[in-house]
């Protein structure tokens, strides 16, 4: 997962072969504050780019997590059910949300690079 891409809705996506791992960014977890609950999609569910895929709830707010690209869910991070705090402590690592089999890799390539995302969030502050 060398090449991680980002969305304007603060999801990250790392591609490994056909399988992409998706989570929320460090900026997103900082904005949410302590995460207390995560609702994840079941394996086999089809997701579409920009459509709802998961829900993350913090002491401040509940937010949708959108699928950055089209695909089919292959696995959800079961560890988050018992320990949603992983989203805060390791948003880009152990706090990943779900994995999908990507339908079209070109959709991944079209997303923001890390540098572009950093510029994007600097504009939000």
């Amino acid at each position, binding site marked *: 997962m060398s090449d991680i891409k980002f969305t304007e809705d603060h999801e990250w996506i790392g591609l490994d072969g056909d399988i992409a791992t998706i989570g929320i960014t460090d900026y997103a977890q900082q904005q949410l504050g*302590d995460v*207390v*609950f995560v609702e994840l999609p079941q394996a086999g569910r089809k997701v579409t780019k920009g459509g709802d895929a998961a829900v993350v709830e913090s*002491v*401040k*707010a*509940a*937010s949708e997590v959108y699928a950055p690209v089209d695909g089919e869910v292959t696995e959800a991070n079961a560890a988050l059910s018992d320990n*949603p*705090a992983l989203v805060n402590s390791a948003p880009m690592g152990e706090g990943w949300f779900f994995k999908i089999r990507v339908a079209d890799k070109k959709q991944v390539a079209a997303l923001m690079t890390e540098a572009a995302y950093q510029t994007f969030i600097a504009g*939000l502050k």
Partner: protein
Amino acid sequence: MDRSQGRAARPGAVAATETGGASHRGLQLEEPLLFEQDSPGRSGVDFPAAPKAADRLGGLRRKGVVGLPGLSEPQVIRHFTRLSQKNYSIDAGLYPLGSCTMKHNPRLNEKLARHPGFAELHPLQPMSTVQGALALMDELARWLKTLTGMPAVALSPAAGAHGELCGLVAIRAALEARGESRKRVLVPESAHGTNPATAAACGFSVQSIPADSRGRVDLGALRAMLGPDVAALMLTNPNTCGLFENEVVEIAKAVHDVGAFFYCDGANFNAIVGRVRPADFGIDAMHINLHKTFSTPHGGGGPGSGPVVLSAALAPFAPLPYVVHGPDGFRLVEMAEGAAKSFGRLKGFHGQMGMFVRALAYMMSHGRDGLYEAAGDAVLNANYLLARLKGHLTPAFDGPCMHEALFDDRFLKDTGVSTLDFAKAMIDYGYHPMTMYFPLVVHGALLMEPTESENRDSLDRFIAAMRELAARARAGDAAFFHEAPTLAPRRRLDETRAARQPVLRWRPPTARRAAE
């Protein structure tokens, strides 16, 4: 009186340690649970011993103890009185949460709602014996229709969100009658969370409409999202940013042009009641939170009330029952009649009578001119806050606002103080915090609604406190904010742990130890 001689309330219970009385400080009373105040054998009443009787319960016979605490009458009274004293309420002082929580409940409303002729009715009484109550419902319906300009109203929904459900089920029924199955509902990103939840509960998929830089619906973006599969738009006006959607007529036209319905969330009707008729926006349905606009208690010890006004297109699908007036007086229609294709019932009976009495009392005691004035005062008070806090806090959007003044957290930038810290510090200054971190479209939002009930002196005191807190944050006193509240009986609660590991049931200490 302590009737220690009476029959033990909990025979054989283990003596509990005395927990009350020892931890009082400055008359701030720590209040243990009633179960923790248990004293075996103590009782408020003196029951005779139960007579001998044959046990016919078989396997249903209770094996363990009931576990009710032994308490005297004064203990129980003191317990609930102390708890009520811990409650910060609109009767104790200003709170900037505003009508979302509850605005002032005029005591005249309460007096009338307690009238035995209303309070002691049973919903299954013969109609001939409840003509006055039915007349009151009919009169309330007439006021709601007149104030909104709409042809029909459903009184039975038990709350605002229940009203949303009523509106969307009516829309779905109307679409089905047209032979259409439209799937999408559009909701602005600043909407109340109940809007998308209601649409999803009705089986629609929800799409979020972006706001423009003025904090209002982006009409261009809305037009681009509209299409033949859109069932409805759900829009709050004035919106959750406290702003009037001034393109609402164009919005309604665009929605109707694609054959969709316009659901208006009437949560903020208080700001415009008596001045603007939502029918003139071009709406098809709108719920009215009686507690927010017409001063009823929020919930009121039972279900609340969220009547829904309906357009001519949706009126045939209105829920049952409803009141009609005929030659023989008033009548509650319980089965669909004539051309009506009612979608059915929303709840067991006709709605919350106690709330109906209070709301109509408020309307009639104010009159149309009084309601006009109340809406004006609500808007004036919010603008007074906005104007006098501008330059101290940072308004999220340029004014004028409607009934709510919305600030973002730019004024706290680089102070090390967050909106949450600021809110906690307000408690030490004697104010209940405002709505915070909502609407989500505004960063670190502080949403203040003073309502029409506060006078200028009260607002000036609040403004002085807010200015002092803002100055303190800017002066680098972050430690004060991080410590706050220091004067409340409880300091900062561990909200994260409470949400992650909620303890939902009290267990006696022995059972708790066994479970660990």
